[in-house]
């Protein structure tokens, strides 16, 4: 649909002006840093060379990190997929009670930064962890038969952090699946398990692949977990190796490894797409919600419910509990007696200049990134979806790219782009480099939520305003923006939470004075101040949980509104 327009239009009308502004924004925030990574990885003393890549593949330390990243992530994804599928099927397709509560609890790991989770697990099953102590005390042995500082530990913690991706996509597909497909199998005489295997599972397979891809990318991307659990055991993955290379600093090596990380991300995405494509030839998951087939567990209902509760207790609640406990313990590993409880870690945190700076910086950066991104992405999506401005689709496509990139790559790109920039101020060394990094990293969230919302606003709603006598700006103010608001708010909260929890990028580009909360916690943890690190983490938890509940609530509200709308407009 085209907008009313006069015949003679000046070259620089307001639409083109907007477009140019947005194009420059995308160029600076997304394209320029990426070009820096690509070009610099091939540069040695001003000339083209493969030297940096040779360095990666000649030193075992480097190619081992690459290899470790791969197999760790594959195994973690497998485990996450199994947990995610089992929980999704149990919650969606059996007659267990308290389904809504389970749905909320099962996605809780997404609200908690992986770093906190890793710390919690160390405090739980580390050398002097709660469970370890209980075990050694109970059986009278000197050490427990497990070691959290290991590849196995990393895989396990990655999996319990990432299974919600699979849970969400698979439950979504199960919810939307047309139950008549299953019913027709039943009428042809197939039993419950047969239906599951022959009909249901193949139909949700694309959703499984989709969730698994998210879990895989998130594992490859993760820094906090392998940093806490691996570095101490000299077990490195790409993200931690890049961190190490940058502390030396060996910039060219870090750059070359970033490019390799990009390649891994792209290849894995292609592989998943192919798998998805093969399984998704039949479009069967409709948009309607229908009453699904529920399996009656009968006498198994109690044990299954208990099992699910236990699972949630172990993988969601227990590490958080350990974190809280540690923050009040005089020292990590101290006996659990009244005299050992103290508030001194909290005092130390609140008096530490670094922690205070971290809190202030995070409180500035997260809302700033969220606000700027929602404004910019709303304009891009508007030009793209409503005005159908030629070229706006390209901006949208470019803006989505960083979503697929591991955080380490964005960190390296930021340093390359802003420590000795070709133009503009040197952002490196200020908190603004973190802002630009968050803008790049989370642009896709804003684009996706504004695009989806705008696509649901029927063109005739705006046209009705024009025929009522309202001009372009008036229509934007009275009709489009109010209808877009839910999408804007949802995107804002999502970006806020993500920026607030961000560690992978921040830990690479922070400098003294520009710490974030996450960076400070990591540094404390890394240098042995476990109590303080836990205390600040515990202070952050309520903020994150509240925001997370808010986000869920907004999602519910939106769903409710949509169902009302679809009821009232045939």
């Amino acid at each position, binding site marked *: 649909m085209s907008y*009313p327009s006069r015949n003679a239009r000046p070259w620089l009308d307001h639409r083109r002006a907007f477009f140019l502004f947005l194009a420059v924004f995308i160029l600076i925030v997304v394209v320029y840093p990426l070009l820096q990574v690509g070009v610099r990885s091939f540069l040695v003393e001003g000339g083209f060379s493969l030297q940096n890549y040779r360095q990666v593949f000649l030193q075992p330390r480097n190619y081992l990190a690459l290899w470790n990243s791969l197999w760790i992530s594959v195994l973690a994804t497998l485990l996450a997929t199994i947990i995610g599928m089992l929980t999704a099927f149990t919650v969606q397709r059996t007659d267990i009670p308290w389904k809504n509560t389970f749905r909320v609890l099962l996605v809780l790991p997404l609200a908690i930064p992986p770093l906190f989770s890793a710390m919690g697990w160390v405090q739980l099953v580390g050398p002097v962890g709660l469970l370890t102590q209980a075990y050694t005390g109970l059986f009278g042995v000197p050490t427990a038969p497990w070691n959290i500082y290991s590849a196995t530990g990393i895989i396990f913690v990655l999996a319990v952090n990432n299974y919600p991706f699979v849970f969400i996509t698979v439950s979504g597909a199960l919810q939307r699946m047309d139950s008549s497909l299953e019913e027709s199998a039943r009428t042809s005489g197939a039993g419950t398990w047969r239906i599951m295997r022959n009909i249901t599972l193949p139909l949700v397979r694309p959703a499984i692949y989709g969730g698994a891809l998210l879990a895989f990318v998130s594992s490859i991307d993760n820094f906090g977990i392998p940093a806490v659990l691996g570095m101490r055991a000299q077990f490195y993955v790409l993200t931690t190796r890049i961190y190490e290379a940058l502390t030396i600093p060996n910039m060219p090596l870090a750059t070359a490894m970033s490019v390799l990380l990009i390649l891994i991300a792209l290849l894995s995405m292609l592989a998943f797409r192919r798998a998805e494509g093969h399984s998704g030839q039949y479009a069967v998951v409709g948009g309607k919600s229908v009453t699904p087939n529920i399996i009656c567990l009968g006498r198994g209902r109690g044990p299954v419910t208990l099992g699910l509760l236990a699972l949630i207790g172990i993988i969601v609640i227990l590490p958080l509990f350990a974190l809280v406990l540690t923050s009040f313990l005089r020292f990590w590993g101290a006996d659990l007696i009244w005299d050992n409880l103290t508030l001194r870690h909290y005092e130390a945190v609140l008096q530490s200049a670094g922690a205070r700076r971290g809190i202030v910086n995070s409180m500035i950066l997260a809302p700033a990134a969220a606000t700027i991104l929602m404004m910019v992405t709303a304009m891009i999506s508007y030009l793209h979806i409503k005005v159908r401005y030629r070229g706006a689709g390209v901006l949208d496509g470019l803006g989505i790219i960083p979503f697929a990139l591991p955080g380490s790559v964005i960190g390296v790109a930021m340093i390359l782009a802003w420590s000795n920039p070709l133009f503009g101020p040197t952002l490196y060394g200020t908190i603004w480099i973190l802002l630009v990094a968050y803008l790049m990293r989370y642009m896709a969230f804003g684009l996706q939520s504004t695009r989806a919302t705008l696509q649901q606003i029927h063109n005739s709603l705006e046209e*009705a305003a024009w*025929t*009522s006598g309202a001009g372009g700006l008036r229509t934007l103010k009275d*009709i489009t923006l109010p209808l877009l608001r839910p999408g804007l708010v949802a995107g804002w909260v999502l970006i806020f939470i993500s920026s607030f929890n961000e560690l992978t990028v921040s830990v690479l580009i922070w400098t003294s004075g520009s710490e974030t909360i996450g960076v400070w916690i990591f540094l404390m943890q890394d240098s042995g101040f476990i109590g303080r690190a836990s205390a600040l983490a515990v202070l952050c938890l309520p903020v994150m949980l509240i925001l997370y509940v808010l986000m869920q609530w907004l999602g519910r509200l939106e769903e409710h509104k949509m169902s009302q*709308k679809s009821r009232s407009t045939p």
Partner: protein
Amino acid sequence: MSPPALAVHNLVKQFAGTAAVDNVSFSLAENEFFTLLGPSGCGKTTTLRCVAGLEQADAGEIRIREQVVFSGRDGVHVPTNHRPIGMVFQSYAVWPHMTVFENIAYPLRVRGRPRSRINDRVAQVLQILDMPGMASRMPSQLSGGQQQRVALGRALAMNPAVLLLDEPLSNLDAKLRESMRAELQLVQRTTGLPILYVTHDQVEAMALSDRIAVMSGGRVLQIAEPEAIYERPSNRFVLDFIGAVNYLPSVVLERSGERLCLRAEDGTPLTVQTGSALESGRELLMAVRPEDLRLEPEGTPCCLPGTVALRSFLGNALEFRVHCHKTSFRVQTEKERPFQVGDRVALRLHRGLFLAHDDKVVGIWHDLENNLVHG
């Protein structure tokens, strides 16, 4: 004669090289209910959107109350919000974040009317629409029919120079559609606004319109009153689109005065009365609507012999399918006709049209007996 409320001249609108609207001209008098009727994709909506300014036409001219709002030659294109129109969309397009009151008041607010006048006018519109006490409801609390009324109210609020309605009833169920149809007529009578109406439903068009423009492939085929469209369509397309028709190939044998003798394809001689000059030997199609056929006992002279193949009860009428030689006829009669499936019958052709090979209507005819009875 007063100037037209809306005049469209030689309007052309192309999408990617193909003309969606091809040289369309028509005009609306004040108070007139004018309908664009045609099958899906014939360019009705596009024409309406050009009038509203939501699409910019490629050529032609559009005037609303003598003011040129579009002219391809002079490069005039008045933006939608400066055209004195009200429009109702097929999808209602009632704003979900505004109350009924706010929806209807919006055109007045945009034009900066004082608050008291807005309140009065909205109350008046709600009165016209028979929606008392609903002003503070949200659209999600309304039924489909009520939402459509709000959309209509919003279009009426400004007292526009012309009201544009794009299939406003097609999303409603059959019963509601009928009552809204009556409502629409009432609204038009009370407000006296000229209405440009778009529909693909010929019954709706017949029931509502003062005049109808039948469109096909972006062109206007005929503009006339509903009766004229039904009884004297200008060509086969209009004839077909407006209702069911039977065709009987025949040849002119001879002509004397108003009387025309023909031979039907099965050899039966037929005599009809017509005003058209048709030379003998000419091959024609006789077109007859189902209700213009009569069933007679076998052997009745001047009728086509045939066999009843199907008989179905329609509630207010009976419909027969009668096989005569190579042609199968649809016949609609009153209920008391005592024929059954398998009966040999004779078909009397009561009245109809002559079609030439180029699908043009070349004459009207009726049977002699009818003439004798009434003459």
